[in-house]
Each structure stands twice: as C-alpha cells, then as structure tokens.
C-alpha cells in the first residue's frame, strides 16, 4: 500500500491557520441533511424485512418464573418469538474497556435468564411482518416474575447479585504519596459529601439495528452501527461463531452519540442472530421509552472527599472514597467511568499525595457507562466544590486559591504518578494561569462583581462562579487512514474512525486538503465501514481529530510526496522546487508552467502503466498514527446566575467556556462542539435526572419527565478558543474539543448558585432542582 517512504511522518504544521486547516468552512455533511436525504438507522430498509420488538421487564428485580409466548406466536403475521432458551448459546455481552478481573459474571445476557435486574431488561424478542404487529404481539407475551427487593442506593452496603456474588464487583484504587502523613501535618482538613445525579446522553435519534444475511456471499451485515464498528464487528462475529471477515458493519448518519450510542447492546445481537436464523432481514428501531430504559445511563456517583491543606491553601493531599451507581449489569465499558473519575480527579492542581477508592456498585437500575466527559463532569464538580470549600475555610479568594495550586507551565510536561485508561497521566502542555486570566478578563469578572453587588442591593438573588477543568483526549493506541487519488483526480479518504454527527468528514477533509494541496470540498470521506478498512478504533473519547486527523495528515503527506516524486522527472524538475496547489503540481515560485494535475499523475501510476512495473500501483498511501499518551485540553467555565426567590428556579444569564485545544482545525465546528456540550452540561446541572420510586420503577420515561434544555434555557454563551498550548504529541498540535464544553458546567453553576445564595458550600448535589433551592432560600431567611 505504501508506495514510498518519502512522507515525513514527523512534519509538524506551523502555528496559525493554513489554507484549509484553521478555517471556519461549512460542512461536507450538511447538504443531504438539510434536504431530508440522510440515511439514519430507521431509513434503512431491505426487501422482505421483518420487525423486531423486545419484551422488557416491568419489575426492577425478581426471579423470572415463566415467559409464555403462546398467544403471541399464534397472532397472524408473527414469525417467531424468542426467549432466553432460544439464545442460550450466545454468550453475555462482553466488555472491551478497563478490564478488571472478576467482572465477567456481571455482564448482561442477551435475554434475561433466571432473574431480571432492571425495568427495561430484555426478556423476549418478537419478530413479525410489521412493526405495529410486532408491538401487538409483544403485549401478548405473559411474563411471570417473583419480585425481590430492589437495590437502589450504591452507597448502601453491597447486597446479593446472584448466589455467591455481591453487588460490588470491584473497587478501583489509585494513589501516590504519603496521604496519612499529609493529613497528620495539615493546617486544615476539609471534608465534603457530594453527589451527582443519574443522567445520560439521550441522543435525538434512538438506537437502531438492521441486520441481514446475504447467503450468496455468506455475509452478515449490520446497519445502523455507530462509534465502534470494528470492535463490534469482531465481537458479533465471535459471539455468533463466525469469522470476522464474514460480518460487516455499516454506519450511516448517526443522530448523536454522546457516549451511549454505538456500544454493543443485546438488541444488536438479537437482530443479527435472527437475520441468520430466520433468513429474513430484521429491523429493530428503539422507541423513546426504551431509549430511557435500555440505553446506557451515566454519571451517578457519591463522593466522600477530604483535603489536607497548608495555611496558604496549598493542597497537601486528597483522599476520596466514592460510590459509582453502575446499574444492573457491567456493560461494554467495564469499570471505565470509575477509572476515569479516579484518574482525572486531581485536574489542574499540583497534588503531593492522593488516595482514591472507587466502589463500583451494581443496583437495580438501567446499566450505566460513558456520557460526554465521563468521570470528569462528576469529579470536576467534586474537586471544584472542594477548592471553593478550602477557600471559604481559609478565607482566601477562590480564584487566588486556584492560582496557588495550578500546575505551572514550567512544570510541563507534568507527569502524575497515576494511570487512566491504562496510560500514564502526563499533562502534555498548558498555560493554566494564562487561560484563567484570559477567561476572567473576557467574562469581565471585576466589573461583574460590582454589578452583582449593585443588583443584590436592589434585592436580586444573583451570583457568579467559576471552575477549572482538565480534559483528556486522543486515546490511542492507533488509527489509520488511506488516501487515494483516482484517475479523475478525486481524492478518497478511508478512515477507521466513525462519526456520531460531529463533523468528522469535514475535519478530516480539511486536514487532507491542507497536507495534499487540494480543495477540501471535493474530498470523499469514508468512515464507519468495516468493509473498506481492516481496522479502526472508532469515534469516542475525543480521539478522532487527534488520532485519525494525525493519520490523515501523515497519509496525505505521503501521497503528496509520491505525487511530487512521480511528477518531477516528467516535468524535468527536482521535487524540491515543486508544490501542489488546487490539485495541480507546479513550481513553488509561482510559475504556472510546467505543471501536471493529480489526475494525470494518478493515471501515470495506474496498474497498466509501464512505469509502475514491479511496484504497487496507485497514487495512494495508508498511514497509521500511534500514540502512547493522551493529550490534555483544559479550560475555565464562568457562570452568572439569577435565582427566582418565588420558585427556586435558577436562570443562567451569562456563561463563558474558555478552552485551550492546541489547534482548532475548524473554529466554527469547535464552537459548535463547545456550545452543544455546554447545553448537555447545563441539563445535568439544573434539569436532567433519571428518578426512581422506592421499588425501582423509573419515573423519567418521557421527554416530559426527563427535561433536556430547550432554546429558552440557553443563556448568552461566549466561547474562547485558545491555541496557546499545542500538544507536542501529534503533528498538528491538536487536543480534542468534544468534551470541554460539558466538563465543568455542574461545577461552575454550583459555585454561582452558592454565591447567589450567599451560602458557601450550599450546593452538594446535581442537578440543582428548584425544591432544593427553595429549602436553601428558606434556610437563609431571617
């Protein structure tokens, strides 16, 4: 594949915008999407397809006594009804991330076997000629469950999961330094008990799986895939006993991912198994209630945290014990969110000693996994609450307190004796103090304090708060990109990445355009397909721009070098005097002749070209970018809130996200990521929560109960994109931009609400609901 080794893998792009990179160009993705010509999961149809409907548990915990499908099977148009006996040979859904021994018995079976463990757990699958009919038949499946007490509090002592297994599969422990000595010598010890509610990504498109078996080619296809096609392909193949090359996954348009979409779920395997066994294409589209009950939840944690500080407020040690509410089963992420929470909690601060114990606990709720800024939204709230509490205790300005503790630029790269996601935490670059100054300046902090004082004097309940965060991005180890120029000069970029709607095609095309010397808008980007590239690590963990973007840069450099090498002798010039502009190889000095188009060069390099004899033909290169360490973007959130004393409603009036991401490939898309991420953080801070009654019945099963922000709730949002600390770990200096908008919202709004109430430390729980605020207002009333 690699026709040349000419492409200098380590060629770094100079700072500042280029021809295509750093430009706020419009997206390649948009034209079909604004015309209603997208291809989302529900838009995929195959001739002779049947429809799947899943029968789900209606009790949170119980022994599954019987499932009677007689009446359902008798309904005309019903093709089959499966219970656990029909899928007994399919193993439970495995986990790929953060593998901890002992988690396996806690993985979810495709259909419940002898117990049900959450409302919404799949018990049976109905296959029928029509989706409406499948629902009719599902209603006829009679399920007998003997109720057991539901475990709903992850901080309560562990209970029984199954005979011989209790509900705490593992405790994630990390730490460094002498914590006990630090506490013994501390000037002050600050202790907090803080909780984050149960939220999730809740994409607007629900999940879908459309499976079909092509007997002529012995191929199983799954459409509606997202995020992790290659891993999912390999696992589906393994679990169904097929070679991986006989299974292909196809990602169309994806209506939002946010961590939850594109994991391997029971329904994916059911659809695939049914397509094989029933010899009909099988279509499953999740409804919204199922999405609330069956798609991964996230976030819910309770932290009991202590800090030891010296008299100047410098951190000496942090000791944190937390309880992570995993819900009913271990899913594909294993213990990842606990690992991330434990590893990322220290954030931007110098910390001599640290001890953390993350209790990974199962409850009778929908299973949980990652949601945008997993483990960081939670621990930024916890850590920044802690910093505010230290400031209050020592009567130090909270901003000054943070300044004293921030890791300094001179200390970068800053290794922490910690690992997260199996890689050592090394804060790769940053000027934290500078960004803090820039953010305060941009938000007009000083003037704001004065206007807050004036508004309070006139009776308003207003306040401001801020929070600092460190994100992580660019999870390795590898991703590959193959770039090919065809004989018409059209550039195709095939990537192992995926897209969940964030603009991956455009960003990769911009990078390719910059390196190769072509226009970005004509580049055809292929991703999310296992039949076009052998490997891929997909779209998650803010990794695509870093990993696949870097691979794109290298592959395009290699193609460029091949083109120049091929053109030079034909143009009777040395490659060093040549460049590529708008797809034409020409002299660097601006002379228009001689020249040669990439199309002409591609034809010269075709399989029938005598010049290629003995070589691999094609103007094409595949490059793999490898990375041992993540890159760490960082930022500051500032919030101004106003509280309605009559209702307890918190209105965010103004908000700033300042985020250093090294280099913005497309500033418009980066702002879009930050604004959208902020909206999700706002939901978690003030509105969104999966609530349960005391028996484990979910109470948030519609959009009328689970409140995601609308246009009305959005404040005036300002976004400051900084590029002061490019990452040394990749050729473009990129850090991921997908999660910084979400990360610190809960923390900053909590600080602002405290400030408005005039009660430091009042907010201990997210979301901050009106009832809580009313109680706090009453507490303060004379």
């Amino acid at each position, binding site marked *: 594949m690699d026709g040349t080794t000419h492409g200098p893998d380590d060629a770094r792009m100079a700072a500042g915008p280029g021809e295509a990179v750093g430009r706020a160009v419009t997206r390649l993705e948009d034209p079909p999407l604004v015309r209603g010509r997208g291809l989302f999961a529900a838009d995929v149809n195959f001739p002779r397809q049947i429809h799947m409907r899943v029968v789900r548990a209606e009790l949170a915990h119980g022994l599954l006594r019987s499932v009677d499908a007689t009446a359902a099977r008798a309904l005309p148009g019903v093709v089959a009804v499966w219970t656990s006996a029909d899928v007994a040979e399919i193993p439970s859904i495995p986990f790929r991330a953060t593998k901890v021994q002992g988690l396996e018995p806690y993985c979810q079976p495709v259909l419940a076997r002898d117990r049900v463990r959450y409302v919404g757990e799949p018990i049976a699958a109905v296959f029928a000629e029509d989706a409406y009919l499948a629902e009719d038949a599902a209603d006829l499946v009679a399920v007998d469950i003997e109720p057991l007490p539901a475990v709903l509090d992850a901080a309560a002592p562990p209970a029984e999961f199954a005979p011989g297994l209790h509900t705490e599969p593992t405790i994630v422990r990390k730490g460094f330094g002498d914590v006990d000595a630090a506490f013994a010598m501390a000037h002050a010890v600050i202790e907090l008990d803080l909780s984050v509610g149960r939220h999730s990504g809740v994409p607007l498109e629900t999940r879908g799986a459309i499976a079909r078996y092509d007997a002529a080619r012995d191929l199983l296809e799954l459409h509606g895939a997202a995020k992790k096609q290659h891993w999912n392909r390999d696992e589906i193949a393994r679990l169904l006993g097929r070679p991986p090359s006989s299974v292909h996954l196809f990602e169309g348009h994806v209506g939002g991912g946010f961590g939850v979409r594109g994991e391997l779920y029971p329904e994916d395997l059911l659809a695939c198994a049914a397509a094989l066994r029933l010899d009909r294409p099988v279509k499953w589209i999740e*409804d919204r209630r199922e999405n609330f009950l069956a798609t991964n939840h996230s976030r819910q944690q309770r932290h009991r945290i202590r800090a030891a500080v010296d008299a100047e407020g410098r951190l000496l040690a942090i000791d944190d014990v937390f309880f992570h509410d995993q819900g009913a089963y271990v899913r594909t992420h294993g213990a990842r969110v606990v690992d991330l929470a434990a590893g990322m909690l220290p954030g931007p601060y110098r910390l001599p000693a640290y001890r953390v114990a993350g209790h990974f606990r199962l409850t009778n709720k929908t299973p949980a996994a990652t949601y945008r800024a997993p483990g960081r939204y939670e621990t930024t709230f916890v850590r920044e609450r802690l910093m505010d509490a230290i400031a209050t205790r020592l009567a130090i300005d909270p901003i000054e307190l943070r300044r004293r503790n921030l890791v300094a630029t001179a200390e970068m790269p800053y290794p922490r004796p910690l690992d997260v996601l199996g890689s050592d935490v090394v804060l790769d670059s940053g000027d934290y103090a500078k960004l803090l100054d820039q953010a305060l300046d941009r938000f007009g902090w000083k003037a704001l304090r004065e206007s807050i004082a004036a508004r309070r004097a006139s009776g308003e309940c207003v306040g401001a708060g801020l929070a600092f965060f460190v994100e992580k991005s660019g999870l390795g180890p590898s991703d590959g990109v193959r770039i090919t120029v065809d004989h018409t000069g059209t550039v195709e970029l095939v990537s192992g990445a995926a897209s969940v709607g964030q603009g991956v095609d455009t960003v990769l095309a911009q990078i390719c355009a910059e390196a190769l010397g072509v226009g970005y808008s004509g580049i055809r980007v292929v991703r999310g397909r296992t039949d076009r590239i052998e490997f891929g690590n997909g779209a998650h963990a803010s990794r695509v721009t870093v990993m696949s973007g870097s691979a794109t840069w290298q592959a395009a450099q290699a193609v460029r070098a091949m083109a120049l090498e091929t053109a030079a002798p034909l143009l009777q010039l040395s490659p060093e005097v040549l460049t590529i502009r708008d797809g034409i190889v020409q002299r660097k000095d601006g002379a228009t002749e001689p020249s040669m188009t990439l199309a002409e060069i591609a034809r010269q390099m075709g399989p029938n070209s005598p010049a290629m004899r003995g070589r691999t033909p094609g103007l094409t290169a595949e490059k793999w970018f490898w990375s041992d360490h993540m890159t760490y973007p960082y930022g500051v959130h500032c919030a101004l809130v106003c509280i309605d004393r009559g209702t307890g409603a918190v209105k965010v009036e103004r908000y700033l996200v300042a985020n250093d991401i090294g280099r913005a490939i497309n500033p418009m898309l980066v702002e879009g990521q930050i604004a959208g991420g902020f909206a999700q953080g706002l939901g978690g801070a003030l509105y969104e929560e999966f609530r349960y009654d005391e028996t484990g019945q979910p109470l948030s099963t519609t959009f009328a109960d689970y409140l995601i922000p609308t246009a009305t709730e959005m404040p005036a949002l300002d976004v400051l994109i900084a590029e002061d600390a490019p990452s040394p770990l990749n050729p473009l200096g990129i850090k991921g931009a997908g999660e910084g908008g979400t990360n610190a919202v809960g923390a900053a709004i909590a600080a602002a609400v405290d400030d408005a109430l005039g009660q430091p430390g009042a907010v201990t729980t997210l979301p901050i609901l009106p009832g809580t605020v009313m109680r706090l207002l009453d507490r303060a009333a004379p």
Partner: protein
Amino acid sequence: MTHELHDITLVVNGRSHPIRVEARRTLADAIREECGLTGTHLGCEHGVCGACTVLLDDQPVRACLMFAVQADGRAIRTVEGLAHGDTLSPLQKAFIEQHALQCGYCTPGFLMLGTAILEQNPDIGDEELIEILSSNLCRCTGYANILRAVRAAAAAMREEGVA
C-alpha cells in the same frame, strides 16, 4: 386482532400518494414508509421533541401525534419540499452557513418549524422566536446557531424580497 384498512390520499409537497393504511397508522409513519419520504424523523413519538414536525395546510404539526387518516387530502409539506431543484431555501442555506446542525436528526423538524415562522411572521421578535423554537428539541447544537440561522434567513429573504 384484525385492523380495517382505509384508502386515503396524502398530498405531500404537491404530489398525491394514494395509500391504504390502518386507522392507527401515524401520519409520520405513513409519510416515511408509505410515501417513502424519510426526511421526517421520529425522535420521541410522544409529541415533545418536534423532530417529526411537518406543515399541514401551512401550520406546523407533530406528525407523530396525528393519524394518517386525519390528513387525508390535506396539503402536507415536508423537508423534501423545501428546495427547488438544486436551489436550497434561504433557511436551508442559513442552517449550513450558521452551523445550525450537527448530527442533523432534529434538523428537518426545525427547518419546517422555522419555515412556518418565516412565512407567518418574518419580522418576529427575539423573545417570541425563542419561545416558538423551544417547542423542538436539539441535543447537539445548544440552539444559538439555530436562532441565528432563522434570523439570517429572514434577513436574506427581506433582501431578496421573498418575504
């Protein structure tokens, strides 16, 4: 469990689709499956998210909350009818230019809602605009760019004398 079938005609974007459906079939499903126009998306099927918004006799409605039989013979407009050939509507153009979409799933609903706003009240004030746009949900953008796009389209239409 047998369900009587009804012969109706859905007139979508000026074209008649004679179809046969059960009374319980939603308008959204009929537009998507029977008429083959999958640009109208379903986000919740309980009338909150607005992804399925279409125009019925020029009024925005939730196609998930109506039965197809209720729309028999009435004028339905969907996202597929906004462009004229290769020429996008001012609002479609503005959505691209203002980066008012990311995943694009809620976009058809917002485009239809926005189209109704621009047709009925092109000089709408900010407060009312936010209130009306709050009837649909977007999980990606944070809404500000959607507001900008509607305003930009209104301005473009004024300039072109369309409004």
